[in-house]
């Protein structure tokens, strides 16, 4: 059964395969007309930005990203948006959905109460086109020396496999920029390094306590945690449980304790 796809039946090559389901995949219509209001922008062409509405037949289980793909492929090939992994590990599809920073790939249409569904790019980054922003400044204050890997907390195993010292995993932060977009301070003070940097710094500190003097000095400088106003929007919008506000509070305490403030 299909959710969507624009065809009543998927055309399948007639290979006589036994172990793979090559029966014609049938479409069960449980779709609903859903309208999206998308902020369009093309420098010099759609400028200033203005909203455009698109309607599609959407199964409620579709994600906002699935809908964007359908609109681009069936209605407007010029629609620009970022995407890659479709499961919240790359961080590229973050945008504002009905006013709140979310990942388009894991936001289901059925979970959005307000229709039409309004899409805008992240705030606080230079707009490139439609929902695409220039994410480069995200990386300005994150050092390449900060390890993107950490020990896995899933420690129910009772024995390590030979050749592995410790199970490792990627950090939670997928560098999506949602926290920066939602942060009240970054909009008025471009000097603030922002919640993502401070959270990454705090995680690096946990893994490399020998760096504490230099890291805390960074966190405590004029661009650091002192500028945070405790709105906690960052933790609220983070899609991958980084809890930047908690990290900032931890750093604040460490800085007080070491007398660096």
């Amino acid at each position, binding site marked *: *059964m*299909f959710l*969507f796809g624009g*065809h009543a039946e*998927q*055309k*399948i*090559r007639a*290979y*006589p*395969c036994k*172990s*793979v389901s090559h029966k014609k*995949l049938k*479409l069960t219509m449980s779709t609903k007309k859903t309208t999206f209001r998308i902020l369009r922008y093309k*420098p*010099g062409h*759609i400028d200033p930005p203005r909203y455009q509405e698109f309607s599609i037949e959407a199964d409620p289980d579709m*994600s906002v990203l*699935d809908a964007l793909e359908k609109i681009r*492929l069936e209605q407007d090939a010029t629609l*620009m*948006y970022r*995407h*890659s*992994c*479709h*499961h*919240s*590990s*790359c961080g*590229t599809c973050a945008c504002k959905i009905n006013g709140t920073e979310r990942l388009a*790939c*894991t936001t289901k249409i059925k979970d959005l109460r307000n229709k039409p569904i309004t899409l805008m790019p992240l705030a606080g980054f230079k707009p*490139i*086109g439609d929902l*695409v922003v220039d994410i*480069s400044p*995200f*990386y300005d204050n994150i050092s*390449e020396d900060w390890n*993107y*890997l950490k020990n*896995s907390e*899933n420690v*129910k*195993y*009772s024995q*390590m*496999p*030979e*050749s*592995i010292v410790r*199970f*490792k*995993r*990627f*950090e*939670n932060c997928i560098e999506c920029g949602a926290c920066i977009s939602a942060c009240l301070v970054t909009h008025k003070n471009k000097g603030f390094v922002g919640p993502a940097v401070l959270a990454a710094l705090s995680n690096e500190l946990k893994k490399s306590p020998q760096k504490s003097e230099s890291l805390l000095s960074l966190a405590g400088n004029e661009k650091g945690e002192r500028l945070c106003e405790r709105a906690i929007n960052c933790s609220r919008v983070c899609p991958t*449980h980084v809890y930047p506000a908690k990290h900032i509070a931890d750093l604040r305490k460490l800085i007080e304790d070491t007398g660096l403030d």
Partner: protein
Amino acid sequence: MEKIVIIGGGGTGAAIAHDLVLRGFNVSLFERGELLSGTTGRHHGLLHSGARYAVHDPAAARECIQENRILRHMAPQAIEQNDGLFVALDVADLAFKPKFLENCRACGIPTRELTAKQALALEPELNPSLKAAVQVPDATMDAWRLPLHFYATARANGARIHNYSQVIDVYQAGGHVTGIRVLDHRMHREYQVQGDLFINATGAWAGKICDLAGIQLPILPGPGVMVALNGRLTNMVINRLHKADEGDIIVPQRNLTLLGTSIWLADDPDAIGLPRDHESKIINLCAKLVPVVKKTKVHSTWHAIRPLIAQGKAVNPQEISRDFDCYDHKQRDNLDGLISVIGGKATTLRLMAEKTADLICRKTGRNIACKTKTEKLLHYRHFYKQK
């Protein structure tokens, strides 16, 4: 030096751009959407040891283990290096084991046999009635960040990378591709690009670029569904110890567990529906390996499209080789100036690029060796430090 134009901004395009600039070529790349938004970004992130292919596709298996070693060295920040287990659940799986071990050995893939008790000590969430397991050097890669290392390095070395730039026409004259027409989705304008050689690295979309050039390409889009669950249920990659089939791969990543996959064949990579029954099918099959999969909330379900090489006769798509090929269209279609790179796996991106760049060197008469086995890659974050 010759100007090489790469069409397609996936992992293959990234690695080709990287290889070519190191050899001194002038490189431009055009991608119609965001980089890595086709198949490369969306796969389940398995950095293959090659064991999955050792029995029925040993050529692909050998390539995988070689590249697995190279990538661990080149891009360690984009890989969770926790190895993997092939798990035998029944007597049929146990009967498969000797051939599996022997073929892995022949392909140079290290294995370690484990008893059921040893496997459960490593991974307590495994099906307690498993019979045995084999440890292999599988790993989890970040499907976006790993190839982004290649883009970062290529760009730093002078490659010009253009996204939201769609190739809408291919120009030819006298049996030779002379240029392409690009639609810039951002600036709302079309322009022509000339070059000495054009590389079609669009994977499952390669047939569409060849259509623009008026030629046929034996590419079969082979989509599959993947399911991400909310929770890190294992640390090691878990595979079923049997001939490669659907729903027999579990890939941990961050605090998610990715289940894969299914397979079917399609005509148009831009018109793929999501067969929702595949989600429950994959969950039920993977639950045989790790039962708690059935009780874990689904985080996301999506499809990715394998770029399979059509083999001219009806065959089970599971058996189509995952090897890759470089098609010089001068030999095949009397159309010079165009090369298509098809097939392959995310794990073998660097090798696909090496073979393609070697072909480009032969065609341009340049005797320049590949440097990508030893040249360090820049950290993926470097991609954003260049404007």
